[in-house]
């Protein structure tokens, strides 16, 4: 199977004043895979994802996303990606349909196409009757699923998800990961950050960040083998313990 590199980061560094949030990160992401960034809060995951999305300037390093350079071709990058922030940012005072119409519209999709796809989406999620409800009136789990749907609505090459499942119950989380898997199966590369260990198992490959550095990068099986443990929790603990020793 041919593996096309769709994200490449070499020696990515991000400093805020004297504080180094990302220390020389090196990694590659292949097209179509689900790539995870696992780590504790404050490890630097959100910083890294913002650089890849073109929301933040790297301090140094060579980084390309979807074949475009992050320093000079950010606008092209943005045309080819989707994003879901930690705050699931949909407009609370607009309805589901209105939110989709807006976000899809700004990616240049045509109105008729948007309308058709919106109804398909609502049906898939079985919430056609909620189509005109304001986001503010929906429970957290639904907002999250909708935010994801909006992020991939325009069929981007890559979708970046920053802690997409925070604060949601395990059942909803599993449903969410079903959606992620479906998107990946449809050819969208998924770059996701999380601090939930169990979600690590769902990724094709993952990297573990500790204090701004990537301490390990491999498939879940590979990591477990490497460190001689049988679950990701222990993988993580081992890496962290090595740090403090």
């Amino acid at each position, binding site marked *: 199977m041919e593996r096309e590199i769709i994200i490449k980061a070499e020696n990515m560094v991000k400093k805020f004043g004297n504080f180094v949030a990302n220390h020389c990160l090196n990694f590659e992401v292949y097209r179509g895979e689900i790539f995870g960034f696992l780590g504790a809060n404050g490890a630097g995951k959100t910083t890294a994802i913002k650089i890849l999305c073109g*929301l933040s300037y790297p301090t140094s390093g060579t980084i390309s996303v979807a074949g475009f350079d992050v320093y000079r071709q950010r606008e092209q990058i943005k045309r080819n990606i989707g994003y879901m922030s930690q705050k699931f940012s949909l407009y609370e005072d607009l309805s589901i349909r209105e939110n989709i119409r807006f976000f899809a519209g700004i990616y240049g999709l045509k109105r008729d196409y948007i309308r058709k796809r919106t109804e398909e989406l609502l049906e898939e999620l079985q919430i056609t009757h909620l189509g005109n409800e304001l986001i503010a009136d929906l429970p957290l789990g639904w907002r999250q699923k909708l935010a994801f749907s909006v992020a991939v609505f325009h069929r981007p090459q890559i979708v970046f998800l920053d802690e997409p499942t925070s604060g949601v119950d395990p059942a909803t989380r599993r449903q969410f990961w079903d959606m992620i898997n479906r998107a990946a199966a449809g050819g969208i590369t998924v770059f996701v950050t999380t601090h939930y260990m169990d979600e690590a198992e769902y990724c094709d490959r993952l990297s573990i960040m500790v204090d701004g550095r990537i301490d390990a990068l491999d498939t879940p099986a590979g990591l477990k083998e490497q460190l001689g443990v049988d679950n990701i929790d222990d993988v993580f603990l081992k890496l962290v313990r090595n740090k403090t020793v």
Partner: protein
Amino acid sequence: MRIIITILQKEFRQIFRNRTMLPIIFIMPLIQTLVLVYAATLELKNAPIAIVDYDDTSISHEIVSHFDASPFFRLRAGAYSGQYVADELKYNRSKAVIIIPHGFQSRMQSGLPASIQMNINAIDGQTAGLISIYSEQIIGRSLAAYSKIKDLPLSAPTARVDVSARYLYNETLNFKHFMLPGILTILVTMIGCFLTALNLIREKEMGTIEQINVSPVGKFQFLIGKILPFWVIGLFDLALGIGIGMWLFSLPFAGSVFTLFVLASVYLFTAIGLGILVTDFARTTQQVMFTIFFFFLLFVLMSGIFTSAESMPHWAQEVNRINPVYYFMKGIRMILLKGSGLGDISNELLSLGTLGTLVMAIAVWQYRKTS
């Protein structure tokens, strides 16, 4: 472009759905014009004064009746006690106490010097000044009236003057006509500056601005989506305010509607630009609010809204060169009251235009999709 239309659609939808903002946009002009205009007057009317008449003669009665008849004053009963004056003034019962001393008439008739004492509460210096002047005039007039009826020694011919005043551009000295444009200015400024800034900072605080920044929407398109709605609303509210002013207060509109809207458009552009500029540097609503409030207060007070800008010290007038509110205030008064046309306000337009372009340029430049 389709994208701009999409953005505008969303903006207008949000604005009209915002149930708290809606009454503010439409009721604000109404309340403002009504209350403020009625409250804001520095003329003298019904000022309570007391006259203590120790003389009790026909001359003193003449004086008292003239004061009674005057619309400037409202006469209170005067009591004959030493504490009276101090108490009247201290407890704010009267603004002034006039004392006509015993023997006034006889001294006047025998050609001896006579004096009338006025005790005025001078905390409000301006009112005190007016009370003093008007009282002098009333006393003078009562004596003149008296001398026509009764006999006072007129051994030499008396010079008399008939001074009349003609008030140009505002014949009835209608203070409301002066204040209304000022209030409309505040209205338009608030919509342009405050509302735009609040809207933008809300997106920042909610995080929705990130979604926009991560999309291919250019910053120009995004900002146009912020500028246009409030520009339209600002113009609409101005029209509403002027309409109310004309209907309820007979606000004159000597100039052309077109000129006014050109001026207002340029001004709104500047105000909105300032709102965006402040938000570019802010992270919370509180910061935005207080920064704008601070500058708003400064600029509005110095713009000549309550008093004319030419009365200000020269250094203040220099500062006004970069005060957009000053130019708009001047322009709107010239258009409404003097009927000035585009040519007459060309200075103001030019200055506003320059300021506006500068501010907006910096505001847009400073808006960063990437931080």
